């Protein structure tokens, strides 16, 4: 019996090739996308899931308070001593692990490698679960001169084979020291808050870095993340409180110091503590990340929504086309009823055919997902794996079958309802004229219009951001990391070596590359809290970057005080203090350092992302350190300049590799997330309109075949080709117009909210939505035209004879 129906269904699927093709392709597209999205969501929700102690591992956060008691923010960095105090005196804490991550230069067989090294306490491998390939993990970090590598890092740095006992040269500050490989671990999964390839002993830090050594006894400097392993059955709330009381015990004068220095005016303690479960960390967008950024869980849900939407579109095709096709099957249904089929038998037959279609869609979808996974990985920046997720595959299979049932059940219900005589006489049809069909088509096109408007506007906003006048010129600037070398000597060297070259327009330096990092200062001036982003710069930086000096002057190397007690501020700074740019010149910055004098005011420049308003900024020379040398090349000369830069670096030092970025790229980094979302919405929009148009293609074919006779008669009566095309297209065109009226306001609302996240936003002009509607109309009409043209130029006598 089953084989009877299966054979019949297979024959039908093969015969109605267009119908089958559209349904299977549409479902495959949607299911493939859903599979990828499901794997992504699973990936996002299983960060660090493999640690055996996961439910007991927490990050210690200091929660900074405002004087009114509200939360100002979380800080995951702590004094050197905190972990020891917790381990000694906290009854609920079994283990603690301190971290620090720093770029370190290794010399291996004469070659220099810069590596991002994670320093961790020896307890690391007791708290977190990793698999050893070589060596004993429990003792691997006990010697301060030990280094643990992941398998791929060991391969990359040392080549294949067991590297245990090999010694490497590591440069701390300015001399090389020896470390020994004590263990190699299997590469951990990529979705972790604590990624590392090279791990060294935290104990080593104070021995080799002066800045750490200075802080070993200090409770005032908070620099090191601390993770803890709670004892089994520990109470989270009391464990948190105990941390707080221990801090007060060891560092009783935090509040009084704050009052003295003016940054704390509240009654009680300026900070409390929180224990953030490691398992929650990745999706907690309200706290700072682990060693990687956290991600907003709403992204998962937006993607989920998009996947669902496209699945619904594919199901709508399925429903519409099956209903359209049912007229063709009317006779069969009548006969089957005459042969004794009840409503249930007809419904199960049609339901079964839908399920078969869904299974084909599933197969296609998984194939598609496999092909598109690399693309998804490059967009989301993750390492998704489809076959490693049998749970997800089962869910997708269930979704496929459910969609088949959902999409097939309405037509099955409708088809099975008719009396056999109605069916036999072909007196029922469920064509494109019914209200439900129209409603479903409008839904499809409204979704397409909304997504396309979204894609257009998002692209436009990103272009708008890039074309914004930033107040300086970031083009062709090479940002060279000083990499622990003597930065002033480096800049002088680069000036001497590169300055005279034809392709080089200038050499300068600053403490932090724009948009990459910043250091902001907050201080009390009288009763007012003042805030400024402070950049330490080479004296010629304002001219070098092309900033507009509104009043006053730039730094003058000839004046001694300019390098010690002078600042250049921006308009926002002057505004904040209630000065015009002219008034600001000559003022002293009250209660900041030695109260430097403002010697000039520059036009506001967007030194951070355009998501934010321009904030007060100070340029100074007095901090005495620079982290980046800047070289501006002419646009044509860039490759040459890079080659000379490499050469000049080689002459300058053999102790560190050259590392550089382009300022343009650093600036673009701030919009990477936006660009990623624009791409995701763009791809979704394309898929949505593709699926919607596949359905339209099938429906138009049905409409034309149903109206063959009418079209034939009209042509015999002298109708022109255009009028016949219009006849077929008009109905669909009206639906697209209605869909635009529905989809556009939805998109307007959603995009308005997205744009609210930018301090600098484009105008949401109505023509974006008209353009989206017009685009959908164009694509829809082109799709229909394939059939309407065929109908219009067909031989009328032929079409009448067939009736």
């Amino acid at each position, binding site marked *: *019996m089953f084989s*009877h129906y299966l*054979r*019949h269904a297979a*024959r*039908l699927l093969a*015969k109605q090739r267009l119908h089958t093709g559209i349904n299977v392709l549409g479902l495959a597209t949607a299911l493939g996308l859903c599979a990828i999205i499901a794997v992504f969501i699973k990936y996002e929700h299983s960060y660090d899931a493999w640690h055996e102690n996961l439910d007991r591992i927490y990050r210690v956060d200091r929660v900074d308070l405002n004087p009114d008691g509200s939360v100002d923010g979380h800080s995951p960095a702590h004094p050197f001593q905190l972990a020891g105090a917790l381990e000694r005196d906290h009854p609920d804490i079994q283990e603690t692990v301190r971290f620090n991550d720093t770029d370190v230069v290794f010399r291996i067989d004469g070659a220099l490698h810069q590596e991002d090294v994670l320093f961790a306490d020896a307890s690391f491998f007791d708290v977190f679960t990793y698999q050893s390939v070589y060596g004993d993990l429990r003792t691997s970090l006990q010697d301060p001169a030990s280094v643990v590598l992941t398998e791929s890092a060991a391969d990359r740095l040392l080549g294949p084979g067991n590297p245990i006992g090999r010694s490497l040269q590591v440069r701390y500050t300015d001399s090389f020291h020896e470390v020994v490989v004590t263990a190699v671990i299997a590469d951990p999964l990529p979705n972790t808050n604590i990624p590392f390839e090279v791990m060294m002993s935290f104990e080593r830090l104070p021995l080799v870095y002066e800045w750490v050594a200075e802080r070993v006894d200090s409770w005032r400097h908070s620099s090191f993340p601390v993770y803890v392993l709670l004892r089994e059955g520990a109470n989270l709330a009391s464990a948190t409180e105990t941390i707080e009381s221990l801090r007060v015990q060891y560092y009783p004068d935090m509040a009084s110091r704050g009052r003295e220095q003016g940054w704390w005016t509240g009654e009680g303690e300026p900070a409390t503590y929180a224990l953030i479960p490691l398992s929650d960390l990745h999706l907690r967008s309200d706290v700072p990340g682990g060693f990687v950024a956290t991600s907003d869980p709403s992204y998962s849900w937006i993607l989920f929504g998009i996947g669902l939407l496209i699945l619904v579109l594919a199901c709508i095709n399925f429903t519409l086309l099956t209903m359209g096709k049912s007229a063709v099957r009317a*006779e*069969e249904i*009548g*006969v*089957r*009823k*005459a*042969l*004794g*089929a*009840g*409503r249930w*038998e007809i419904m199960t037959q049609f339901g079964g055919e839908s399920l078969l279609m869904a299974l084909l869609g599933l197969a296609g979808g998984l194939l598609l997902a496999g092909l598109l996974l690399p693309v998804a990985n490059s967009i989301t920046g993750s390492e998704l794996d489809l076959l490693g997720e049998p749970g997800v595959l089962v869910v997708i299979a269930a979704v496929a079958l459910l969609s088949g049932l959902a999409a097939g059940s309405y037509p099955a219900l409708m088809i099975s309802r008719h*009396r*056999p*005589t109605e069916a*036999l006489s072909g007196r029922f049809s469920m064509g494109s004229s019914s209200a439900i069909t129209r409603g479903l088509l409008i839904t499809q096109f409204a979704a397409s219009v909304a997504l396309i408007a979204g894609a257009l506007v998002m692209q436009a906003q990103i272009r708008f951001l890039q074309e914004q006048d930033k107040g300086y010129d970031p083009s062709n600037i090479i940002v060279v990391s000083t990499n622990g070398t003597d930065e002033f000597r480096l800049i002088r060297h680069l000036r001497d070596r590169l300055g005279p070259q034809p392709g080089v327009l200038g050499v300068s330096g600053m403490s932090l590359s724009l948009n990459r990092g910043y250091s902001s200062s907050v201080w009390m001036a009288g009763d007012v809290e003042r805030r400024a982003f402070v950049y330490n710069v080479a004296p010629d930086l304002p001219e070098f970057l092309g900033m507009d000096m509104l009043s006053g002057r730039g730094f003058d190397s000839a004046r001694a005080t300019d390098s010690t007690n002078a600042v250049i501020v921006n308009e926002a700074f002057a505004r904040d203090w209630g000065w015009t740019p002219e008034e600001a010149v000559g003022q002293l910055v009250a209660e900041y350092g030695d109260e430097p004098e403002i010697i000039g005011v520059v036009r506001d420049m967007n030194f951070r992302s355009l998501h934010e308003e321009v904030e007060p900024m100070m340029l100074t020379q007095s901090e005495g350190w620079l982290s980046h040398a800047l070289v501006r090349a002419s646009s044509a000369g860039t490759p040459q300049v890079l080659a000379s830069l490499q050469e000049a670096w080689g002459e300058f030092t053999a102790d560190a590799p050259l590392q550089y970025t382009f300022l343009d790229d650093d600036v673009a980094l701030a919009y990477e997330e936006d660009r990623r979302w624009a791409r995701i919405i763009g791809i979704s929009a394309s898929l949505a309109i593709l699926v919607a148009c596949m359905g339209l293609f099938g429906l138009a074919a049905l409409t034309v075949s149903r109206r063959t006779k009418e079209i034939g008669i009209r042509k015999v009566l002298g109708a022109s080709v255009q009028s016949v095309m219009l006849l077929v297209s008009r109905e669909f065109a009206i639906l697209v117009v209605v869909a635009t009226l529905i989809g556009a306001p939805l998109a307007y609302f959603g995009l308005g909210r997205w744009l609210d996240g930018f301090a600098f936003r484009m105008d949401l002009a109505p023509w974006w939505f008209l353009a989206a509607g017009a685009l959908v109309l164009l694509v829809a009409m082109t799709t229909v035209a394939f059939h309407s043209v065929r109908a219009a130029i067909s031989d009328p006598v032929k079409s009448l004879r067939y009736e």
Partner: protein
Amino acid sequence: MPDSIIRVQNLTKSYDHGLSQSHVVRRVSLEVRQGEFLSIMGPSGSGKSTLLHILGMLDEPTSGEYFFLDEPVHRLSNRRKTQLHRENIGFVFQAYHLIDDLTVYENLETPLLYRKIKGSERKSIVADALDRFNMVAKKDLFPSQLSGGQQQLVGVARALVIQPKIILADEPTGNLHSSQGDQIMATLRQLNQEDGVTIVQVTHNQDYANIGDRVIELLDGRIEREYRPEASPNMD
């Protein structure tokens, strides 16, 4: 076992056309006995097919009573009606109405599937039917590969496989050449006489009508005349 297989009382079927109503079957009362061979005649549009569809439970009357094997069909649930239908009634159409995408074998198998007859038994029943109608060689052909006469033979065979108590045939020979028609009529007659199957057929052919025990003539949805072929004027 009740004596009458079908008994209808004041059966009416009308269609609404907005303002007007058309009465297609008007207050028809009729009884068909077990084992009877009844022919229905009448001009085109007189309501013959409509009546036959109602008797075959393919359509619902607007009013009136219908007893099938003494069960009141007009009061039964759809489920019970489907059951009565699938166990007792075979229907033969003028337009054959074979299922295009099923082979001859599969077409014959279909009514047995709905009666939930198991695989091996189904196979032997279909094999018997193919044998009886000399269609063994054609069992894997599709309807479009058969002549009209052959298709109708499949139609009759398909009505028969469930061993129905009654076969309702709506102009079974209407689309056939006379020799093919003769063969179909001979088959129906044989079924009636040898197997005791009750037959109600609609026909325009007086000779074929006369094969039956009794003829009724419809005109405008009413029974205009009823006679036994022995007494028919044509036979005189």
